[in-house]
């Protein structure tokens, strides 16, 4: 079977930063593979190692800059990658769920996988909605917040556990083809080996514009417009202990003795 994994490069923000308009100023931003996608890649690669998947393809919406992150996924064992980008996406602050759904659905239709794995959410915009939206759009089944997948996929059924709130897990069977949004902790993502990194350089990374996948620019116009970004007003009324580590530790020590919780 064939597995497709959506991979996103997310922006990371330094502790101290400045906001310019509706964006964080460039110099305070870094880039990383989305934490949840890392687990999705690992799950796909393990299915391949278990002899269940024949091919693992990644798909990314993003500019050329993010190829480094895509190569990380290839270095961990994905076979090839597709990257979708278009000049019309260049100045977009916020690509909403429907826009992502249109683009990813077009690629998925072309690739025709049996299983699609996405991260539960992206660490930057945290929509946590794209996987399920794509599934519905394609007429696939889906499961959100999956923290266990049985690797036999018997009779075209995926047996999963969905992680609900409060330490409760739901056991669910889903018909394939399906989209699963993968929760952290489902596995232990590997580090890319040196050999993997070398091999990744030679793997196919296909770049497509919207026209190449048959998506019209007008259909991906975000319906959501970000109008402001600001640091949340601090509601903190914390007492900040100042001084050397010795001094602050001693303040905390005193508090713990006062409260009678430590001697």
């Amino acid at each position, binding site marked *: 079977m064939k597995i497709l994994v959506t991979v996103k490069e997310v922006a*990371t*923000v330094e*502790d101290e*930063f400045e906001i310019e308009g*509706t964006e*964080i100023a460039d110099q305070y931003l870094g880039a990383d593979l989305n934490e949840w996608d890392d687990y999705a890649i690992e799950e796909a690669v393990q299915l391949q190692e278990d002899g269940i998947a024949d091919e693992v393809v990644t798909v990314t919406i993003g500019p050329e800059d993010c190829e480094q992150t895509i190569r990380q996924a290839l270095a961990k064992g994905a076979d090839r990658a597709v990257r979708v980008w278009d000049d019309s996406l260049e100045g977009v602050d*916020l690509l*909403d*769920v*429907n826009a992502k759904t249109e683009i990813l659905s077009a690629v998925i239709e072309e690739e025709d996988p049996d299983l699609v794995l996405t991260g539960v959410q992206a*660490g930057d915009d*945290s929509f*946590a*909605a794209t996987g*399920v*939206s794509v599934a*519905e*759009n394609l007429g696939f*089944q*889906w*499961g*959100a*917040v999956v923290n266990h997948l049985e690797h036999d996929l018997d009779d075209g059924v995926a047996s999963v556990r969905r*992680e*609900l*709130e409060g*330490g*409760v*897990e*739901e*056991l*669910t*069977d889903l*018909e394939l083809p*399906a989209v699963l949004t993968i929760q*952290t*902790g489902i596995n*232990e993502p590997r580090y890319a080996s040196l050999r993997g990194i070398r091999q990744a350089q030679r793997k196919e990374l296909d770049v497509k514009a919207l026209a190449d996948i048959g998506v019209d620019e007008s259909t991906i116009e975000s319906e959501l417009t970000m*109008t402001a*970004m*600001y640091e*949340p007003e*601090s*509601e*903190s009324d*914390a*007492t*900040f202990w100042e001084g050397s*580590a*010795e001094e*602050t*530790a001693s303040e*905390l*020590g005193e*508090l*713990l003795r006062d*409260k009678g*919780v*430590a*001697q």
Partner: protein
Amino acid sequence: MTDVLAITDHRRGDLRDVSYEIITAGRELADETGGDLHLAVISGTVDDFADKLNRDGVDTIHTVSHGEEFNHDVYTQAITQLYDELAPQYVLTPNSVNGLDYAPAVANQLDLPVVTDTIDLETDGETLIATREMYGGKVETTNELEGDAVVTIRSAEWPQAEGTGDASIEAFDADIDEDAIGSTVSGFEEVGGGDVDISEAELLVSIGRGIEEEENLDLIRDLADALGATLSSSRPIVDNGWLPKNRQVGQSGKVVTPDVYIAIGISGAVQHVAGMKGSDTIVAINTDPNAPIMDIADYAIVDDLFDVVPELIEEFQ
């Protein structure tokens, strides 16, 4: 087309708190649009649920009797049919794990925009202004959209509706296509039992990703020993397999209410805070003075944990 349709959440026979919160959020929006607030309760003992949900501000409660527990296909079908019947402007759902399992599907099927995990909502009847967070709570953003939308609300952001309402309760005869149901829930399992019950502890020393390496965990164990405290953690520590699941504090872990909670190298993501905000006194040790944990901390040390923790151990040895 000014009404609001809010969907409630329940599990294993109990309505979840967010079901009462969504009444408040929905009522506020309906007041702004000048419409009615419709609630829907789908599956389970719907009549019993409807009685409980009949609180101030609700105009109509639609019950959809089908199956015991949540099934996303049933929810998606029932909600899209309710939308067609009622033509509300906004469909509100909880941003719960189950909400996220159907809200995007409902939006896609109805060809509506979806905005998730909102913490504040406002509308003038045409433009919806939704406030949400990005980058794990480091910034807030406002987002606008026109027309109808599906919106999920974060739990514990709106107060729970109270009082007794006089809503009319109507059974909605949803036409559920069984053939279109491709998922089956076969059961539930509690996880995270084991040696220690962190929810019983008076003093919790809780460690997060700031610890960096598994080896460094010894330092925190030493601290817990020195203080006679119980060790707990944020999720990444458990995901890494460094501590067992029963030590995880948060939305998908345990809810704790110790006398003192010391959060060390924990940023205070909303899912973590959900599990520890009821602690009597919260102390944060973090290098980032702007980490979200500072908003709920009573005391804070802005410093490197590798400097502060050894000093603290020394104090108590």
